């Protein structure tokens, strides 16, 4: 690759200003409540300088270092998901007229332009999976509008956590597609590449300096080293076939002893798309809002058909999660539903690690 141009660290603010001038609300990683969260960003100084993240099953802790870097953290609980697939939203409104007729109003509105800085490769991969899900046959207008207004600035990851395994799924730590701009972070600034025409145009307006090839190589090496440091992986082979061949494996019951069926794993997963719909009528009885909200295969309503919840017990709910995410996703979207972000491992309150469960279920030698 030709050596990309360089944006000195103290000029990051210029990028924010360009984006603001173009009408974007900037969103970037900020520290709140002990985690890295995507929040509105007014100033580059609000970025978490030197903050790193320690993650392990059921545990997430920030760590302050004296590194000058602002993207030295591994991901927080949120991916891009809430920005395109809102956790809770109105889909339409039904209004009962005085003559008994019904009028339905669309709730699709023009989305605000949002530029996200510091996007991770795993989350870009997850976004593209969600695009497949929501934008195919019957495009979801809410998702589509927000996606259309999204500008994505990736930062290649150099500080994966203990829970990360994007190198194994092939989705990171280097972002390869799906971004408008991408940054390779060094202690003194960023090597900037464009990934879309919008990114090209933006890049042309940045106060860049020529990049130094040697230092760029070092930056790339750091990303590769980050990949090498990851230790978790998924069982090899055809997980879909292997999982569906082991629906009666005793391990499902064992994990169910620990699993709280709280759904946290699915809520933090950047690819999970399940949602439920509900009706919220106003007290006058004339106006009723039809809404949707994130749901989970761990909830009782997910598998309810009149009179029975098909998945009553935790074992069957946990099995649904794993057989779908790592199994039937292949048939549905041509690949696994997992991008290796590790969130489900860190944010499970009891620290269940699906990679470990998958190994236990799929790689054991089957007794004959």
């Amino acid at each position, binding site marked *: 690759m030709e050596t990309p141009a360089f944006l000195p660290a103290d000029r990051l603010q210029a990028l924010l200003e360009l984006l603001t001038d173009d009408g974007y609300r900037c969103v970037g990683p900020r520290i709140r409540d002990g985690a890295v969260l995507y929040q509105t960003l007014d100033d580059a100084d609000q970025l978490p300088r030197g903050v790193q993240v320690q993650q392990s099953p059921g545990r997430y802790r920030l760590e302050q270092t004296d590194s000058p870097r602002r993207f030295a953290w591994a991901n927080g609980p949120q991916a891009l998901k809430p920005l395109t697939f809102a956790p809770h939203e109105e889909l339409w409104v039904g209004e009962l007229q005085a003559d008994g007729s019904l009028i339905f109003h669309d709730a699709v509105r023009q989305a605000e332009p949002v530029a996200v800085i510091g996007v991770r490769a795993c989350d870009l991969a997850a976004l593209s999976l969600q695009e497949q899900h929501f934008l195919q046959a019957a495009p979801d207008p809410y998702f589509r509008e927000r996606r259309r207004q999204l500008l994505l600035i990736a930062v290649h990851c150099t500080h994966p956590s203990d829970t990360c395994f994007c190198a194994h799924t092939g989705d990171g730590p280097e972002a390869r597609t799906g971004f408008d701009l991408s940054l390779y972070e060094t202690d003194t600034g960023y090597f900037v590449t464009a990934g879309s025409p919008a990114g090209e145009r933006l890049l042309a307006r940045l106060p860049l300096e020529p990049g130094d090839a040697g230092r760029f190589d070092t930056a790339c090496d750091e990303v590769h080293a980050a990949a090498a440091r990851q230790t978790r992986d998924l069982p090899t082979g055809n997980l879909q076939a292997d999982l569906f061949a082991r629906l009666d494996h005793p391990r499902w019951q064992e994990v169910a002893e620990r699993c709280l069926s709280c759904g946290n794993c699915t809520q933090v997963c950047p690819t999970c798309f399940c949602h439920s719909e509900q009706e919220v*009528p106003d007290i006058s009885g004339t106006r009723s809002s039809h809404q949707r909200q994130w749901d989970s295969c761990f909830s009782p309503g997910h598998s309810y058909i009149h009179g029975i919840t098909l998945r009553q017990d935790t074992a069957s709910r946990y099995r649904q999660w794993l057989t779908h995410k790592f199994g039937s996703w292949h048939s549905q979207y041509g690949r696994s539903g997992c991008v290796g972000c590790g969130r489900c491992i860190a944010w499970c309150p009891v620290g269940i690690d699906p990679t470990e469960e998958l190994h236990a279920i799929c790689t054991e030698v089957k007794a004959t």
Partner: protein
Amino acid sequence: MNTVNPYLPMEAEVVERIQETPTIVTLRLRLTCADARHRFYCAPGQFNMLYLHGVGEVPISIKSGPQHFLDQTLLLDHTIRAVGRVTRALVRLQPGDRLGVRGPYGRGWPLDKAHGKDVHIITGGLGCAPAVSVVHELMRQRSQYGHISVVQGVKHCDDLIWREQYEHWAKQPDTQVLLAADQPDARWRWHTGMVTGLLDQLTLAPHRSLAMLCGPEPMMRASAERLIELGLSPDNIWLSMERNMQCAVGHCGHCQFGADFVCKDGPVFNYPAVRELLGTRGF
């Protein structure tokens, strides 16, 4: 608008209400917007989402066959059993009341594959609702198909709806109608017991037959397996599934059955596609 927002219902009016049994009601609906009526076309086996203001939406099969769509009046028949929140309220609607309709959704019965074949329609309980439309269609194009059998089982003989309809079909050439009730009364002149008990009575030529099944899953599974024993190829068995549905367009994830979304990959499935998981607890 519908093409823009796939979740937005269209307004419809109840034009007729038929009380089939104490808990089963057929609502005949007319979309109030002429344009929507012109655009609406559906195949037997597809379903609509019916919306009751302030209460919610549920998937209900479209019972009317395509002949209803040829004229401008387009009437959509839905036969609904009152079981829960939404359905109990839906069956209370009266002519003139308004509701929301979106659809049609899903893949219907494989009429193209049935062409020139004997067709056996085996249903249990209200499983007959999604199947009636296909019988209508077969009858409308009677010459295109071989032998037709209609097999329906109910729990109690009073649950049998559309008795005259069955009697009418029974009189058609090369058509067999078999009915079964678990709990018959003195006047019941059909089979007593489960539907599966009737399958041996089918005029079955396995190599040129296609079966369409709809009803409770254990009944469909038992019937399919019996048909296979009787020589029918699994490929020629089709069945209609039900799962929780929130969006009906493959987004909400609730209707997944293994790798399939019942709303868009079904509700009608080829038996081999679901054979493995059908009856597996938790799917």
